[in-house]
């Protein structure tokens, strides 16, 4: 397989460097256009695209590239961190660069396997590159194809299915009882980081009402102001607890603060579906003995962890299938590119065929419209057949098996 030297990818990611290093090597959105322009000055570099997220900063470079130039660009990229650990900055050339980009868009190279945020980030990078004029032609098409690969992987596999965050898992679990949150009155006990995170998830799902209860009332009030909720003192929990459809406890305590004595049996039984109590605290804030009650559902961190673990296992089982899609799409992309390189030849061929047809018809003195139409059809059919052979040829020049071997070796290295 001939090595393409018209494409290279230079970067640093969560796989090769710690957060502090990645932070120093990241390129803020405002500086990306300027960085791209600086790259375009290098000899042979015609296009570039900058992708910078919290987990990776990658430069996709296109043009007439030499290995030495790419190595120099990689060294310059890493030079911003004086004591950079060896191997932190990587570079891939040609097909390896394409395989890497497609793996990234598929979410196979993400810290949270299969996460979909990366697709939006790639789209954003493509748009910024187009705006600055740095990403055009070949590179624009490649990034477009990478986005399509990401979408296909998520549509055809379970790689993006199921949340891997405990806070989202809690909301997903509550959703299995409550369904639409627009009829749900939720109470969040604790206004710390987790409390605010679940509040955000609930707000996103348009929960009907949110109440915050916290030891420090000021923090509860702050959270209530942020999410449009109300506040409740911890010692008044008894008044509201049994009326809420969803109770989430995420608070630091030494012993349970929600016990049987806080619940009103009669009010609990008024709910159509059993109210859901979810304890995200450790040590637990809701008495585990409440699990035995049939008028409510209680779940804790262990339950949520088991949901997350199932999702993770399900995603991991999809890696092979997603990899197959990446290889298939790389093969398709390369065949399309090879075929595209034939375009001038094809245009020339079409012109020659038409000229020859006209010449033969003129020599024979054919003026009958029927015969001319027949000659026209014959020429088109011959041209179509020639193009089909070219397309097949382009596809045959690349072996998918060899590409797969290359992908496997690339994945092992990543």
């Amino acid at each position, binding site marked *: 397989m001939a090595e393409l030297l018209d494409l290279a990818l230079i970067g640093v990611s969560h796989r090769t460097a710690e957060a502090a290093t990645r932070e120093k090597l990241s390129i803020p959105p405002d500086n990306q256009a300027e960085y791209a322009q600086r790259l375009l000055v290098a000899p042979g570099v015609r296009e570039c695209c900058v992708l910078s997220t919290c987990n990776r900063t990658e430069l996709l470079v296109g043009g007439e590239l030499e290995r030495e130039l790419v190595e120099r660009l990689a060294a310059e990229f890493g030079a911003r961190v004086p004591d950079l650990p060896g191997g932190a900055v990587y570079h891939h050339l040609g097909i390896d660069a394409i395989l890497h980009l497609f793996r990234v868009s598929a979410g196979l190279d993400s810290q949270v396997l299969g996460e979909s945020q990366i697709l939006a980030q790639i789209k954003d990078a493509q748009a910024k590159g187009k705006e600055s004029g740095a990403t055009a032609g070949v590179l624009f098409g490649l990034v477009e194809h990478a986005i399509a690969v990401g979408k296909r992987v998520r*549509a*055809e*596999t*379970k790689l993006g*299915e*199921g949340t891997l965050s405990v806070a989202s898992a809690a909301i997903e*679990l509550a*959703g*299995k*009882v*409550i*369904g*639409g949150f627009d009829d749900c009155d939720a109470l969040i006990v604790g206004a710390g980081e987790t409390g605010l995170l679940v509040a955000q998830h609930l707000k996103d799902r348009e929960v009907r009402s949110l109440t915050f209860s916290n030891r420090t009332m000021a923090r509860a009030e702050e959270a209530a102001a942020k999410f449009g909720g109300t506040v409740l003192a911890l010692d008044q929990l008894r008044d509201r607890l049994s009326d809420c459809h969803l109770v989430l406890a995420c608070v630091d305590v030494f012993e349970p603060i929600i016990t049987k004595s806080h619940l009103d049996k009669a009010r609990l*039984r*008024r*709910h*159509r*579906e*059993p109210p859901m109590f979810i304890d995200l605290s450790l040590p637990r804030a809701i008495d585990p003995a409440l699990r035995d009650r049939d008028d409510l*559902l209680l*779940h804790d961190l262990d*339950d949520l962890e*088991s*949901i997350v673990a*199932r999702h993770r296992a399900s995603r991991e089982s999809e890696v092979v*299938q997603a990899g197959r899609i990446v290889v298939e799409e790389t093969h398709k992309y390369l065949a399309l590119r090879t075929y595209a390189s034939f375009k001038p030849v094809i245009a020339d061929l079409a012109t020659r065929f038409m000229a020859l047809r006209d010449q033969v018809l003129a020599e024979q003195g054919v003026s009958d419209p029927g015969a001319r139409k027949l000659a026209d059809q014959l020429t088109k059919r011959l041209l179509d057949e020639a193009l089909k052979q070219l397309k097949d040829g382009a596809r045959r020049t690349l072996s998918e098996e060899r590409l797969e071997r290359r992908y496997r070796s690339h994945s092992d290295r990543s």
Partner: protein
Amino acid sequence: MTAAVQALQVLLPVVYMALTLLYGMELAGPRAPKWARWRRGTTAFAVLLHLGYGAVLSTELGHLPIAHPWQVVSFLGFSILGLYLLIEPLAKTPATGAFVVLAVFVMQLMASALAPLQLVASPLAQSRFFVVHIVSALLAVAALLLSGFFSGLYLVLLRQLRRRTFGVLYAKLPDLERLSKMNRAAAAVGFLFLTVGLNLGIWWAHEGAVRNFSYLDPKVWPAIVLWLVFGVISVSGFLRFLSGRRAAWIAVVAASLLLLSLGVSLVPRGAFHVFR
């Protein structure tokens, strides 16, 4: 029996089997093969085919095919599918359909395999009252069985939530609130049809259409009880004392009794009522 009826009797179970497979694929999620997308088309084809089967049989018999027990089973299967398709949008997922279509497939298979070779017209089925009475009653039975089925799923999901077994059903089934709504919707449809069927039947009997009419008939008194039970379930959304779980239990028990009473009174004797 004409060749067309025989052909349709063979074709219908085959199509329902294919539809069961296609609905089953919904449980496989994104890994489902591409042909799983033919579900909607196959459903429409199955509905049209069954309607065609009904039309051909009606032409042959000179009345709707609802007089013979196996015609009733086929009609019931078709009604279950039709009502399910009406209620399915409430679920926002076709995952529950696999079980419904499987039941319809089994019913049609039995109806096709056990149908007598000779088609015999029933003089009773020529009566318009009889037709409306039976059709309403069968549509009610189909709706009530669906109500029981959705309630069963509700209880399975609730049990999984309580036992913390987050398996395939947990992932694929609609939420408890939605299953509750589906239960109430099916119960309401059943209640309405049963109101028509029951009242018409009783009025017709009092008009002297039957001899020895009795409210103690094994079809009449259970129908009245079911009518009351499903009437309550259909409005349970407004009743504070009847939670989703209680409504589900009642529907499951009532639907099981309905199925039992249908089996006992329909299959061995081949007639609905004790009276003639």
